[in-house]
């Protein structure tokens, strides 16, 4: 009898494959130990659901196609409370529908992963074209004060790797974690190397150890409560209402609300060192920097090399974690460079927190592109050259 990890290998197939970004997200989820997926078809994210529907039953897991995206996120949150790792995948219109239950996942501290393969909006927009128009919705889409974790890979390989990371963060901080790609990366095929188990670190949510004195939302130093799955005899009550450490509704107490909501924020904000991921190129010898993320960032790498060949001291800060926003990191770059170029496949979203972090220490220029096409190397190079010519 083969082990579960061996069966995962068997289900995923060859170690080296040529697959789409959507496939990679599904593979990452399976490698992370995801056994439950609920979703609703939507271009360009459908392939994630297709892969999960193919693989999960082979491993004894559950795939369920819900009636809409509201139900999809509801189902994964419910499933997560039985103690399993869960995921859903969608695109802009579906992500809009998920907002209310996303907030429910946050306040109930439910580990879950949501993949958003972004397309152009507003509304139905351009279903088959890539965009990064949901970056601010990720941060502020659900109502009320909260923090969120958002990761943005730049390649097919990274989509798989960061999906595993997303699961780990969801488990560690007991919160929904978002992983955003876009229609181009979602449908782009690249070489994917499935890592060996020795190369994968997995984190499982901390379980309650004793019923004695257990309170489902009481925390220690980590600020993350210990988890008791439904059916384990702990008789946990979970509510979206403001609740006390016991989990019981306490909706009229300003103090209890204040304590709960500030802790939910702090458990993420106090761990930014662990959560914030990024990549730097020529950080120490840079005059004009590009700050980019997602599929755009990969073109920027080439462009920085090209610019340096032309005598421009260019550098690149590739943001991998978008939320919580790496303010201190961007501020450090702003100290060292004359100007920052922010290319985005939207009309300027992450440009704003960047400006906030820069606080006027250097010029910040937005290079917005919408309509579904990627920034071309020429467009980026022209913008870099123009910035480098500007007086300090």
């Amino acid at each position, binding site marked *: 009898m083969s082990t579960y990890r061996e069966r995962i290998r068997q289900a995923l197939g060859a170690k080296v494959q040529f697959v789409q970004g959507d496939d990679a997200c599904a593979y990452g989820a399976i490698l992370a130990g995801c056994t439950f997926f609920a979703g609703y078809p939507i271009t360009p994210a459908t392939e994630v659901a297709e892969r999960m529907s193919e693989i999960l039953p082979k491993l004894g897991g559950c795939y*369920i196609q819900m009636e809409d995206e509201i139900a999809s996120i509801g189902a994964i949150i*419910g*499933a997560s409370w039985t103690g*399993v790792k869960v995921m859903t995948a969608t695109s802009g219109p579906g992500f809009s529908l998920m907002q*209310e239950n996303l907030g429910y996942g946050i306040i109930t501290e439910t580990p879950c992963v949501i993949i958003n393969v972004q397309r152009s909006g507003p509304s139905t927009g351009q279903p088959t074209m890539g965009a990064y128009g949901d970056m601010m919705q990720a941060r502020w889409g659900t109502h009320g004060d909260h923090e969120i974790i958002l990761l943005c890979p730049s390649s097919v390989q990274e989509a798989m790797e960061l999906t595993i990371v997303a699961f780990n963060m969801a488990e560690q901080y007991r919160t929904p974690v978002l992983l955003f790609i876009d229609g181009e990366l979602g449908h782009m095929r690249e070489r994917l190397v499935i890592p060996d188990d020795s190369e994968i670190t997995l984190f499982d949510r901390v379980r309650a150890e004793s019923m004695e004195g257990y309170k489902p939302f009481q925390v220690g130093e980590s600020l993350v409560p210990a988890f008791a799955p439904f*059916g384990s005899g702990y008789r946990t009550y979970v509510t979206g209402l403001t609740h006390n450490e016991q989990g019981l509704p306490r909706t009229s107490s300003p103090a209890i609300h204040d304590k709960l909501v500030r802790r939910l924020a702090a458990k993420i904000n106090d761990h930014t060192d662990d959560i914030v991921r990024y990549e730097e190129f020529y950080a120490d010898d840079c005059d004009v920097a590009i700050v980019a993320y997602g599929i755009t960032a990969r073109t920027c790498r080439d462009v920085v090399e090209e610019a340096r060949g032309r005598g421009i001291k260019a550098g690149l800060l590739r943001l991998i974690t978008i939320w919580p926003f790496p303010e201190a990191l961007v501020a450090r770059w702003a100290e060292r460079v004359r100007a920052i170029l922010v290319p985005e496949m939207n009309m300027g979203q992450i440009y704003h927190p960047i400006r906030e972090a820069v606080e006027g220490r250097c010029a910040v220029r937005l290079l917005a592109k919408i309509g579904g096409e990627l920034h071309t190397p020429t467009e980026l190079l022209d913008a870099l050259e123009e910035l480098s010519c500007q007086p300090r």
Partner: protein
Amino acid sequence: MSTTLTLKTAAELRTTHLRQEMFPTIFCDGCGLGNVLNYTLWAVEQVGLDLDRTVFVSGIGCSSRLTGYVNADGMHTTHGRALSFATGIKAANPDLNVIVFTGDGDGSGIGGNHLLHTIRRNMDLTVILVNNFTYGMTGGQSAPTSPTGSFSPTTPYGNVEHPLDICELAQALGAPYVARWPVSVPSQPIKSIAQGISKRGFSLIEMMAPCPTAYGRRNGLRGIEPNWQWYRDHTVLVDEYERVEQFGSPEERAALRDKMKIGVFQDIERESFGDRWAALVDRVKL
């Protein structure tokens, strides 16, 4: 299942099945929700459900607050979405018993599409839907079940819409077990809830419950007793309903127009999602 009920007293159930720290309840005088909770716990007792292995799920509204009082795993979710969460719990761990408390607004208004598809999928859930003809928690606005002509703060000139018959919908969708009872009778609801829990697949028990505070007083029912009496006067057993329809005098048939059918409307067998998924996994599992 035994046909005679040997029940613990309400006081006994209170100590074993309820969360003491949640009392007093939020419910108004004359509300039917306390009865629904009692009937449910008696049914749970009768069936012998292990509360350690039972999850109570609800959405938003007065009836959805019921989950909080039960001393078991509970999930009080978002408005209309209880069935989505319950579906996830049951699909991920089919060994758990999942009982859903919902209301007419939560379950058939904002959650109507989930109701439709949860029945179609035949999730093995027991849904106790409390119908009080109104959105009680927000102050008694018109609901999908509000009778035509009824008054509410959002239908100040009378409701022009047609009400939804939730049980007919569930029957048409092929729900294995469908029943409706008023809270004014105790034993039939207990039996139906017990049957619903025992049924493999989706079961719907619609409990008609008065809301004197938000509905009754605006619709000619002042005081608690007239609210409860209304259910005795305006319900008729399904067998009797059908007999009158077929064989009754014109006067008798005319009198049916003001009455709602009660009873067990459907009790059939149908493979559940869980059974079919398990068979599929057996077929393709590595």
